[in-house]
């Protein structure tokens, strides 16, 4: 069985990998005729990434059967570190060789870079994402959230996120003081709030920061879905695909 996909932008694929890498160093792409999907957790089981890219995102796409391709994402990203805008990327993989080929072609078609990348053994411990329901949802500017997290990080290692019918609040408290960043539902940073009561939970900034930084490079808008003291779901809409995260809360008391 084999797989081949040509993407118009190598740069974009590198950003997608960085978004996965915000949670996991290693992951298994499940590839079928419809597209590719990867679900992975960090080793401490605090965050999860659910990534999907449909075959329609590709210029050319061929896949016979279903394949699992396990790679070290951090190492793969090193190969894509120096891609320039306008360069295309073709990924191909055949099951026998267990090697992923990457062909990067520049905008004029005059230069090809061909990498061969060893894949890893797939460990057959398949897991399913937790079934969660959420009491509130907000659509918000990802850059605004990124900046708010940066402000909170100066004071604490965790942040309290509150979604109320009228606003979204990020709040941090540390030894030296506190920070509170409020986004009103009427303001430019909020696109929508769906909530009939106030919900909140605390999260480690370490995890949120990496996720929002990588996600905001891919999408100007993000969704937050939350229930009090339950995991938060962060979504970054991407064309022909899905990029969602779950982060488990810290129980800090109100």
């Amino acid at each position, binding site marked *: 069985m084999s797989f081949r996909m040509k993407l118009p932008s190598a740069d974009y694929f590198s950003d997608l990998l960085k978004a996965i890498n915000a949670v996991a160093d290693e992951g298994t792409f499940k590839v079928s005729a419809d597209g590719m999907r990867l679900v992975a957790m960090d080793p401490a089981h605090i965050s999860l990434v659910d990534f999907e890219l449909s075959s329609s995102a590709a210029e050319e796409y061929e896949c016979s059967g279903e394949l699992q391709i396990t790679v070290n994402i951090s190492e793969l990203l090193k190969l894509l570190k120096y891609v320039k805008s306008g360069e295309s990327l073709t990924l191909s993989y055949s099951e026998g060789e267990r090697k992923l080929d990457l062909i990067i072609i520049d905008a004029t078609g005059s230069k090809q870079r061909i990498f061969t990348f060893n894949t890893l053994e797939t460990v057959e411990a398949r*897991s399913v994402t937790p079934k969660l329901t959420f009491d509130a949802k907000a659509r918000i500017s990802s850059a605004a959230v990124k900046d708010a997290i940066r402000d909170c990080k100066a004071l604490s290692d965790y942040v309290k996120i509150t979604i109320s019918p009228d606003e979204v609040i990020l709040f941090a408290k540390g030894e030296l003081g506190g920070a509170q960043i409020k986004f009103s539902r009427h303001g430019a940073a909020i696109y929508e709030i769906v909530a009939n009561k106030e919900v909140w939970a605390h999260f*480690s900034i370490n995890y949120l920061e990496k996720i929002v930084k990588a996600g905001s490079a891919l999408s100007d808008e993000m969704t937050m879905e939350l229930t009090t003291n339950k995991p938060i779901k962060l979504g970054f809409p991407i064309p022909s695909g899905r990029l969602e995260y*779950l982060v488990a809360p810290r*129980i800090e008391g109100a």
Partner: protein
Amino acid sequence: MPGNLVKPCLLCRGARGLCGESPCPLFSVWRVVEEVRVPSSSLVEAPSPPSVFVGWSGYPKVRVAPSVSVGEGDARVYDAPENWLDLSLDEILRMRLSLVRGCMTVDVRRPALIEELRLVAASAKSVDMELKFSKPPRPGVKLDLNAPPLGPAGIVEKLRIVDEPRIEKPVDRVLSDSDLKASEAVLQLYSSGIPVSRIQRIFSVGGLGVEGLRRIVPTRWSITAVDSIISKSLIEDVKRLPIIDSYLFFERRVSRNTFIAVIAPYAWSYEWIEAWFPYTTWNPGAEVEVEGDWEDYRGRTTYASLGGCYYAARLATAEFMLRTRKQGMAILIREIYEGFFLPIGVWFVRENLRRMFESRPEKYDQLEDVLERISRSTRLPLSTWLNTSRLLRSLLRQTRLEVRSL
């Protein structure tokens, strides 16, 4: 901090035994210092353990000081901290202060100038050396942040190596490999079983690295560089191991120090916390000072604020996990009590933790039980550790995603 701590040294002044130690640790150190025999001649022939100290002041023009032992017993032990654990601090100090240093000033970029010393530093046995001083060495004690104490010193005019150093095969291989990066060379030496103290000495005299890039490295930096390089590599292997299934608790009390380790059943991460009681080496004040630093699964990119001990302890921890083939979250605590005022060197942490991790741990299933166990071992209350420790706090408060396996 509670205000009920007495100022034992001030009240006691060596006469009343308030710290519970006899004889008074302060007095006994001075007695050792008084006993130091300083050679009266400007020509000294004696065995070097081997030992070569490289200072850091004046960098990049630094003092390189090979030393010879004018004390008794097997000279090799004098610069091999791996063998010091069963000696008292006084004995170690006595030994160290009978090392006479011959100092010369060398530019770190010109390690070729100390070519001969490179072989002495790398030797597996002591090497007889003749030091001709410009005038007889001055008595004195040299203390360093990371390195063990040192004794009298003088400017050396001429140095003659009297007998052949013994260079083991793996050492010879890296010394003569001019294409091997210093970090790779360190790892090769470690996996060939060369003691960390010797790797550090070879690193320091500019014996490792790609030709042209070799540098002389001040002893205090080289100690931490070697601990850091080795532990970083071991951690990559640790992260592939299965996760331990219960909490482990270790404890070691030695020379006015208490060491504690908790290994928790989660993926690799590491934290090192030091509590310096008043009137100790790095805390001249009257309040307990508590400092910690940590890293998560992905490691750290900045230098740990606590420096040398952080990396030495990380090495001992990673070695333990590799030996037992299980990974975990490691929280290490050290309390340093009144009367421990001599900077003894980072080896003290590395070797004591190695010994501690050889002991049989207590096992606990519940976090609450292991926290209670910590509070029974430390003088500071549990609340201090919960306030300082990022990892203990995360154990208490951070929930995990519940994912069903198919």
